[in-house]
């Protein structure tokens, strides 16, 4: 009996080892792929000039918020630039959220909140609705509720009853009311608060929980991986696949999986800058929108890939940072419209990126193909 059991156990181990080897060999056989095919929308081809503050994908439509209105692209073509003349609440568009259930598009502007539905705008302002403030940085849809991040706290609009709620320092643990971003999870909603860290709101039990920098220092990180890296949080992203929220700050990147914090700085990661405007995470991908390029981070392999135009030549460069800290740089014939990155969203495997000077659409291509082409070169930078 014991021998039979031991044989069975051995076969199991052999199977496991075999499957592991097969999987790793298949993985090794796959070519790495990078975003090397970039299409840019700038003032040169009819896009509003200057900053693009946000981008949101809605099927084959893409909404981009700029300092000069809201741009609708459909199948990669600019369909319309909506301005206040079309009924938009404000000229500068900071956030866009699409209600997947109703199809309505909610737009946060510096002149209030707009809803675009059936070709018509409807506006909500501080004077004419329960909106806490007209400087709207973030919007997010959670079932029948719309959550709104403003400079004066967080609003919740019940779209069925028209009831507005305000959450600020008077009824929630806001150290600062100035809220930048919102990320909706199944059980909690996360808020990025400028100077106030991250706040979560438990949907079932209706309670708030703050996540703040334990050392409270502006420039120092005294307690690494002990909590949020900094209280000036620019955005937050809940990843339902890994049950982790990511927070971008102006002084580094943080993640929290409910048990452990991980912090990332330029000095010991592939981050090109600690000044991060936004973060978005799905699956094994974490995207950091920094002031010196767009970084893709894979926490499983601990590999960073940064995309940006070279500051001097404007040519594309792809910088790979391996777990051991070694770096490799690949040249790319096309690249992002600007290296100051403000936001991004996914369209299948493609990405749309909001930059300080236009919108960029990136498509991933196998490295092998593009490396064999004349347009790209690679060089190892060592460590």
């Amino acid at each position, binding site marked *: 009996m014991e021998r039979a059991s031991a044989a069975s156990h051995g076969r199991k181990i052999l199977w496991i080892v075999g499957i592991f080897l097969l999987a790793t060999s298949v993985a090794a056989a796959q070519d790495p792929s990078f975003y090397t095919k970039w299409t840019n929308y700038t003032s040169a081809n009819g896009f509003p000039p200057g900053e693009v503050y946000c981008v949101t994908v809605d099927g084959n439509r893409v909404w981009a918020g700029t300092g000069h209105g809201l741009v*609708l692209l459909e199948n990669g073509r600019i369909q*319309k630039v909506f301005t206040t003349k079309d009924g938009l609440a404000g000229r500068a568009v900071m956030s866009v959220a699409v209600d997947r259930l*109703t*199809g309505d598009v909610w737009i946060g502007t510096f002149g209030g909140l707009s809803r675009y539905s*059936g070709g018509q705008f409807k506006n909500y302002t501080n004077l*004419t609705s*329960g909106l806490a403030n007209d400087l709207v940085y973030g919007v997010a849809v959670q079932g029948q509720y719309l959550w709104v991040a403003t400079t004066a706290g967080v609003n919740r609009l019940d779209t069925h009853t028209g009831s507005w709620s305000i959450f*600020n320092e008077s009824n929630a643990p806001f150290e600062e009311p100035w809220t930048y971003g919102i990320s909706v999870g199944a059980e909690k909603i996360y808020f990025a608060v400028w100077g106030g860290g991250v706040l979560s709101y438990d949907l079932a039990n209706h309670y708030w929980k703050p996540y703040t920098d334990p050392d409270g220092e502006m420039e120092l990180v005294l307690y690494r991986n002990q909590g949020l890296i900094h209280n000036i949080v620019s955005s937050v992203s809940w990843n339902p696949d890994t049950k982790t929220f990511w927070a971008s700050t102006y002084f580094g990147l943080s993640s929290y999986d409910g048990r452990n914090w991980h912090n990332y700085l330029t000095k010991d990661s592939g981050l090109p800058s600690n000044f991060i405007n936004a973060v978005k995470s799905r699956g094994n991908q974490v995207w950091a929108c920094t002031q010196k390029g767009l970084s893709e981070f894979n926490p499983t392999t601990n590999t960073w890939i940064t995309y940006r135009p070279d500051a001097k030549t404007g040519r594309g460069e792809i910088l790979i940072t391996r777990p051991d800290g070694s770096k490799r740089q690949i040249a790319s014939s096309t690249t992002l419209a600007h290296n100051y990155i403000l936001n991004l969203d996914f369209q299948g495997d493609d990405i749309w990126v909001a930059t300080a000077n236009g919108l960029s659409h990136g498509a991933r291509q196998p490295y092998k193909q593009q490396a064999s082409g004349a347009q790209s070169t690679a060089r190892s930078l060592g460590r």
Partner: protein
Amino acid sequence: MKVRSASPAIGGSRPRNLIAGIALVAVIAILGRPSVASAAPQAAGADSGNYIPRSQYLSPVAMTLSADGRWLYIACEDSDLVLAVDTRSQKVERRVHVGRMPRGIALSPGGKFLYVSNEDSNDVTEVDAETFRVRRTLAVGWGPVGLTTDRAGKVLYVANTLGDDISLVDLKSGRELKRLEAGHYPEYVALSRDGSRVYVANLLARVAPVDQPPVSELTVIDTSRQIVAARVDVPGVIQMRHIAELPAIAGGYLLVPFMRPKNLNPLVQIQQGWYLTHGLAAIRPAAVASDGPKKYQVAEVLLDDIDRYYADGFGVAATPDGRWALVTASGANVVSVVDSAKLRHLLQNTPPARQQELANRLDSASQFVVQRFPVGQNPTDVLVSPDSRFAYIANRMDDTVSVVDLGRMRIASTIDLGGPKEISRERRGERLFFNASHCYQGQMACATCHPHEGLSDGLAWSLETPQLGRDVVENRTLFGIDGTSPFKWNGKNPNLETQDGPRTAMYIFRSQGFSPKQVNDLVTYIHSLQLPRNPHLAPNGHLTDAQARGRAIFFRDRTTDGRLIPPLDRCYTCHSPLTRYTSRVSMDVGTATHYDTIHAFDVPQLTGVSTRQPYLHNGEALELEDIWTIFNPEDKHGITSDLNKAQLNDLIEFLKTL
């Protein structure tokens, strides 16, 4: 604030305010007792020989036909019944009780189930069309009226009038999938012939500045994606109700009855005619869609004749071949028959530059209306049999159905649905309320400006003859006004008898008006109009946290920093809960403009305030927030400047419960 004071000074010293406050409280205490006006319903009951509960009347208001045309199913709003009429025998064969106030009815694609919207119980009753038994009740939004299934019979679309939205219900699970925002007061819906769209007609115009012509919305839902595909502007009109779609061979137009008011002109113009006109919107997708959302072409034609009007269009139906379209004029007790080929010819041969003129021409109906049938009292819905032989018209106020023989173009018969033959005083008043024959050339009934049985139309009107163009005032609701006298914004009418008597004949209807007996009947009916159930208040009356905080603000006597608020500057002083949240006196709250000849206005009751947009005497405040954020800069309308935004939101949450 001031009580009918000629002095420009507002507020004053604390002792003076206190004295004034005590005096006002005394006035309110006296006025708060049941008045002669508020005793009117009892007066109706005292007429014991003529008192018949409203629920005994049937009031057929919506109909649908079985696919073979054999069965006519009728929703009867006052009796909470659905009737099945055998169209061969023309007898009521079956009946079933549904929810409270059924207002809409639809049949599943296979004809197995009936869906009945119950406006007052906020649900839909599913009835087995064969056994005529209730199968289940589906929860929907607030005030459901019009409804239809999609072509597959999987999703039910329900227009919620009070919620300004549309519930989409999964008919397999019975659960509401989502709500889509509609326009303002969505009432009736129609599934497009190809099943790709659900059209929703909104009764009232979008809430907008009252010095602009109204713009109503036809909401278009894409049934494949179940989202709002378009919000079509229908300019210059309100009160869009039923929808009929002509087949492509007849132009593919959507026909929607409307009322076209000239409310920006003084009401005195009613004696010149052409003040309140009634017609059809003809809407269809543009032949060439430009970029962006699909565009719709909107044309408007009048059904009125130059010297006679067909007030309050309600139902519309087309024959399957699209040759005829029938439109009920619920205020004229008439059905107009439209030759759709002639209508199409007119629309297609009118240059775009003259389309707007067409919407105002009183001489065009003669080009496409081929017949007018007098029918019963207050005709609402109309249907055409699948074989195009007959049309059925529901006569809401006399519990009958008129049957039109479309081959011979004559009334073939009238089906008596039952109900009391004796007409109560209240019912007589209701008939008067909906009848436009009392107005010069039949331009309007009471219900024209108070649609949905007593609602405000949301428009501002220049009513006063001596002050042409001045003293423009917002229309007011008739729901729950019992005990809120005096009436009118200037508070000059001590009771409804005065409001609806000779003054109405002289200034509004420009005709002989009502006899004293008719005035009594009408007043009895108006006093019977109750507020709809308040969806913002929990059934057990418990307030939410926000509502409770708002209540404390409403009844506060100190500012947020502890200062005593003078009695006249407290919410509850002028909006006393003893008298439906009005003090029944006139107050100057600093809202008069240079177009007003008076400065003190009758304090409106706050009950049902959430359904009464816009606000203030002239309708300048489009939202409740505007009252304080825009129109109360000096705290003349109560002290509110100390409230922060969250507190103001709480106050509004409480007001919505009233």
